[in-house]
């Protein structure tokens, strides 16, 4: 029995030798590199004819999924006012808008206001086929009130046009106070 065990141990040792030499102990998982993740959705609202009085708010998830959840920011707007909207999609500080514009035919931003009469959102920019894109828009506020503005960026290759189609790239929420 002992004699027969010897080759067993030899092969076992050989096996572990091969593996320990083939991958040394200093192999560590590579640090997670930031991929093209979106961390920030920034809204800038400028009331028409009143340059300089900019209203901005950012929906941010800097540590990505699984960490701290994003905090829902607040937009305070004036009743009965028309605002020019600029939407900026960021990876930390890197502006990703140009990438979305490059693929404008596959993307669209959908704005949803709850309640619906809180404001009216109209997308002003177009893709090459004259369909809405949504990185710029106008917002016309209604009467004073509170509610929510949802901003959804959809990736819709070949299916552009309906908010239910495609894959969601961004879904950001803003609490809105119209006063």
């Amino acid at each position, binding site marked *: 029995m002992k004699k*027969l*065990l010897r*080759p*067993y141990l030899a*092969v*076992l040792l050989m*096996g*572990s030798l091969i*593996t320990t030499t083939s*991958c040394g102990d200093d*192999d*560590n*998982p*590579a*640090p*997670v590199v930031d*991929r*093209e*993740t*979106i*961390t*920030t*959705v920034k809204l800038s609202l400028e009331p028409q004819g009143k340059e300089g009085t900019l209203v901005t708010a950012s*929906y*941010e*998830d800097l*540590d*990505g*999924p*699984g*960490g701290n*959840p*994003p905090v829902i920011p607040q937009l305070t707007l004036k009743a009965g006012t028309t605002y020019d909207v600029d939407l900026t999609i960021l990876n930390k500080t890197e502006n990703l808008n140009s*990438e979305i514009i490059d693929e404008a035919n596959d993307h669209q931003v959908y704005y949803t206001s709850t309640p619906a009469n809180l404001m009216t959102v109209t997308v002003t920019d177009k893709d090459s086929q004259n369909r809405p894109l949504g990185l710029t828009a106008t917002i016309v506020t209604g009467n004073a009130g509170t509610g929510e503005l949802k901003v*959804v960026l*959809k*990736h819709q290759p*070949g*299916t552009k046009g309906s908010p*239910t*189609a*495609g*894959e*969601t*790239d*961004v*879904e*950001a929420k803003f609490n809105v106070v119209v006063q």
Partner: protein
Amino acid sequence: MLRDLILRKLLLLPLLLTVVPVVAQSMLPHVGTSSPVQDCGLTISGKVLDHDTRTALPGATIYIPQLDRAAIADAYGNYHFHHVCQGTYTLKVSFIGYATEAYSYRITTSSVRDLQLHSDAAMLRSVEVVSSRLLTESQATEVLSGRELEQTRGLSLGESLEKLPGVSSFQTGPNVSKPVIHGMSGSRVLILNNGVRHEAQQWGDEHAPEIDALAATELKVVKGAAGVRYGSDAIAGTILVNPSPLPDSAGMSGNIGLIGNTNGRMGTIAGLLQGRLKQQPISWRLHTSVKKAGDSHTPDYNLKNTGFEEQNLAATLGYNKEKFGAEAYYSLFHTKIGLLSSAHIGNTTDLLYAIERGYPEQTGEFSYNIARPYQDVNHQLLKLKGYHTTGNLGKLLFTYALQQNVRDEYDKDASKANPEAPELHLDLLTHTTELVWEHELPSAISGSMGVSTLWQDNTYEGRMFVPFYRSFTAGAFVEEKWRKDNLQLEAGLRYDYKNMDVKRRDRENNLQQPSYSFHNLSGSAGALVDVGYHFTFGANVSYASRSPHANELFADGIHHGTASYEVGNPDMVSEHAINASATINYHTNPKLNGGISFFYNTISNFIYLQPDTVPELTIRGSYLSYFYKQADSRFYGADLSLSYAFTDRLNLDTKATIVRAYNFEEDQYLPNIPANRLNAELQYELGELGNGNFKDSFVAIGGLAVARQDRSDEQTDPYMAAPEGYFLLQAEAGTKIHIGRQPVELSISGNNLLNTVYRDYQNRLRFFAAETARMLLIRVNLPLLFKTES
């Protein structure tokens, strides 16, 4: 890099296949005599027994009409036929006071066949027993072989095993299916591929076993905890994928198989060549198969990006002397599987839209193209085995195996920085060794004892789903059977030590290196009683433990197929299962045969994914959060199989499976438990047709009925209630013809013949698309017999 290398090797494969036989042929000694066409050195032997008392029947006569030879059983009931050629033979057994019986066997190697006679003198009609279901183990076991296995050729391993009672499969679209035994799958189901523990990323629901089902001639399932022999984690059961033994008579033979599937326009070609040298006890075998399929379709639409391809190669070389022998085996498996493109979604809102829509957003036209998202998986296995007999008492076996599993997963959208790279790359290296003494002692005791080790190294690149880990497991076991008269008692015990060193990055990119060690004990005890009157009873109680997998400890990421966020728990402990089963078999009867087995499995600290009530909020919206939890759970149910022979040509086969599973700690249903299933098939043997031009012809019609999984609720399925039950019509036919001297086996199997639109609870993509439409599998099989050069 590695993939390129393997592909290049695969390209060499046809070349190899043509070269090797030539080499082997030239290695054959050229004997100057006109030797017979095929090998005729086989022996058929065995015992003639009284079926009910199991006593030997000395003096019984055995007659083989095909050879016109007869033998008389000796004082111990033993009989022998020597110098028999390969072929199908009828053994007519007769003895005074017993009904004469005829057993048909296909003899390809020297075989031992015990023949049983019934003392019922009134029963004079001869009975042809095609297959008998004699129990040899107290645990419930099922075997898929012979024609039943042939009828699954062209399906994946998981789909083939669904034929067996108690076994279902967990699917991700049409091409990924994982076997499920009694409601459990993944790392709780151990697969032994050619005797080696298959080690891959089994934890993943969308990771199908990397095994070529076409290389197997027998699929055996041991249901219930089988931890003692194969390692403690086999809580649900063990699947043995066995190729046929290497040829033991000189000469060369082969087989070419062609398979086509109308749904997905799949084409498969498989080739087998095997032989044995004349002067050296050296046998060899080469097996290869190549599969290519395009998009599958449902009755209403195309399933975009559901094509797949697969290439396999296996080579075996054996050296067998009477007292010792060795075997080397190498296999390579490569697959590329497209995943339904519309099943990749952004968040739960998208998922709800997909469910509401009721069909995939993009259907497209049929294509063989495989685009993102897809998986590309390579699995290599090298096995070295040796044995030496230990006197007359048994033999000592040593097995070493090296496995490398490389899994690349490509997301729907390529990374801009590195568009060619997979988003997830997993590399698992496994060394296993096993030293076993199989013995048969004179005191009616037989069994095996041994030690085994398993060493693993797992690394990844890209997204973190399982961390880096190195683990070492060492185990020792003993398993003995005692058999006397009609009673068999079994007992076994195993101890495993497992150590696991983990390396992972936390959210701040700091390196963490936790270590784990686990001590797992397994045991089993069973009894098998042959009570006569064709009844056998088996009962078994087994205990097994499974250590939590690295995935269950450290999962932390998004699953885009179901818009879920999975979180592990680093503080988990081993789960312990106590499995009780009872089996009754009613066998070797002229008309009614069957078996029923009951199981009752109590698992403490059962690990599963539980949907959280609070969704995970991200920049892409909300994801349903799942966390790995442990709870005391219970699985119980029954498997039934019945067959009834109306005439010696018409036979009805029925199989039913019932599984119940609960988390009894919190009184909840467990998710993803298979629904009740019933399968029935009516077969008619046509025998010889058209003046003997068509042989072994048969037709069969049957159906599969699957009930709705009513034991599910908002807690198990928060998005979509379990789909309705369904019925599928199936049919089969086959025959054997000769074109010149070449035998050609033809068969066809049809599934979902009524083009039923249905969804299956066990399919992860049920939210997005219906199941596949009608499919016809067409098979052409050419057995090759080579003349020995003279």
